[in-house]
């Protein structure tokens, strides 16, 4: 598996986080969606952000991808200030977002969808190699390269969305609700793939409503509640936390 970009040398020294967010505030018009959250991810980690609807999980990911304007606070990635970058520059810097709700291109073929993921490195050879990796990770996609994206099942579309993000050869993968609206069996497959990607050295920030699944793959987790970080810590500890069990895991 060579999914992470081999030549994308990161300047991060050991000890400093790959991504660090401090005091991030985001508004939708007059509504304060994020009220100054702080979080950080080290290289090679899977960190999940869990919480109820409207807690600000998706907003956090969209803001990192610079799809939303920042009101206050900083986002630093590998010594760079993301606040000053455009969405395209963020992708180029090595951060790929898998948007919520499997936002694939339904009338483009699976192959075209994947090739669009590699929009930024125009090298044919690298693209073909990454394509090979992605189809190895998701054999179903390899079988359906010529098919329109819209004809895939929900789970397969999610695989395609993840595959497309991987095509950019990112250093940091942002996953927004990969299990949303997907049959449990396929969700298991997708999370198995996420583990494989992580084992290959990818850093992953995972946003998930399925707390059990999220905590099972992550090392650390943050719990968001109405735009604030209410809890953070080791995923194993959080899984045992009484409050979390009551609120998100359906009691003991």
């Amino acid at each position, binding site marked *: 598996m060579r999914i992470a970009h081999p030549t994308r040398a990161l300047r991060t020294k050991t000890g400093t986080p790959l991504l660090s967010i401090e005091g991030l505030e985001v508004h939708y018009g007059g509504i304060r969606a994020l009220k100054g959250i702080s979080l950080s991810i080290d290289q090679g980690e899977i960190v999940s952000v869990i919480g109820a609807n409207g807690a600000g999980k998706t907003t956090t990911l969209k803001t990192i991808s610079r*799809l939303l304007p920042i009101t206050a606070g900083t986002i630093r990635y590998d010594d760079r200030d993301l606040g000053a970058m455009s969405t395209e520059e963020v992708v180029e810097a090595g951060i790929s977002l898998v948007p919520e709700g499997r936002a694939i291109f339904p009338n483009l073929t699976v192959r075209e969808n994947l090739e669009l993921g590699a929009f930024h490195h125009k090298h044919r050879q690298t693209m073909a190699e990454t394509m090979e990796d992605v189809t190895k990770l998701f054999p179903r996609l390899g079988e359906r390269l010529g098919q329109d994206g819209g004809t895939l099942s929900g789970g397969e579309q999610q695989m395609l969305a993840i595959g497309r993000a991987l095509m950019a050869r990112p250093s940091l993968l942002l996953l927004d609700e990969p299990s949303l609206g997907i049959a449990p069996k396929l969700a298991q497959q997708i999370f198995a793939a996420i583990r494989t990607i992580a084992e290959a050295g990818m850093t992953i920030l995972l946003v998930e409503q399925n707390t059990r699944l999220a905590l099972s793959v992550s090392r650390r987790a943050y719990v968001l509640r109405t735009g604030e970080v209410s809890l953070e810590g080791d995923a194993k500890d959080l899984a045992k936390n009484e409050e979390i069990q009551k609120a998100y895991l359906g009691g003991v």
Partner: protein
Amino acid sequence: MDSAKQADESKKGHEKPRSAKDRFGGAIFVVGSLLVALVAEFLLPRLIEDSSVRNILMTICCNAVVALSLNVINGMAGQFSIGHAGFMALGAYTAALIVSAMHTSFGGGTLPPTSFDHDYLVAFGHSFAIVPVALLAGALVAALFGLLVGLPSLRLRGDYLAIVTLGFAEILRLSVATTRLGNDETVGEAVHAIGGPNGFFGPVFHVGSVFLSSLGGKKGYSGPDGAGVPLYAGPFWVIFITALVALVAWRLKFSGWGRALRALREDEIASEAVGVDPTRYKVTSFVISAFGGGLAGALYAIMRDGNPVVQPDSFTFQTSFDAITMVIIGGSGSVTGAILGAVFVTVTVKLIELVQHADVVQNLSSSLEAHGFSLDLNALRMMIYAGVIIALMVLRPEGVFGEREPFFKKRMRTREGAPA
């Protein structure tokens, strides 16, 4: 699953041997259309003696350029521009002015008839200097205005582009049609007044008015001495330019750029997430579309057997709407569809004109007029289009061909591994 098949699939991305047709297809097409255009230049006037029939053929070509260029923004990029006539007008007036000026500097006079004598060949030779300059200038002026109009309005989503383009085209047309100064002041004289006793801005504004006034107002611009714009673009230029535009439109559609546009049309957020800058892509396609519109207008203004007067009335909302009809009927996004849409619209326009001028209709019309009614078959055209478009909406909302390219089954998809 079949692993050998999978391996085969993934290898395709690596090194797909490109056939000679793939590699030289464009060059072969260009040379072929050059030859066809050359033959047409010399044969068409002999084969078809009726200049109004030649006019229909040439107009079909011009309208194909109109439809192909509008298809870039309305079909491929999925933005709705309804002011294409504005860009055509810019191209037409620019080209007419330049051709007139260059014609004068080449000695002036009337263009020789197409009798293939010495004079004709000299004029044909001159056209190689005049036509490219005029067409390019017309297209560039239109593209520049496209950038000015597109930059602010394409940052926004939704119908803003439609409103802005409609307003732009109408403002342009009405400015030309209504600016008439009573005196014979030339632009040069007006320029000399800048910095004089009246200051700077007043005279600069005055130069603009004098320039607009020199375009002839509602009656139109008819060359330097009122003898008509010299029509330098014979069948050779019209056919060759149309072929070139079709080739460029085809290449655009199947390039990585065209694929990014299609992605943008399908899901803007997802395309942003893979690194497509929506504003940049929309503005670029709008500028390309405006460039093509200017080119079409320029061609229209200087094509042989055409109208030697460039009039604001040729560029009304009706013209923009005809262009939209061509694109929608053929199928938004389809290059072949745009061309066939252009053929359909041009032929119906001309057919109805022919019927209108037929004796029976003329007699009927004059007898009706005696009773206070009027008969304008041109209105019938709008009813035909409306009927066709309503029928399409019900039966085939995507247009006759949708986004597909009939007759070209093999290359319906983006070329594999096309660099983005």
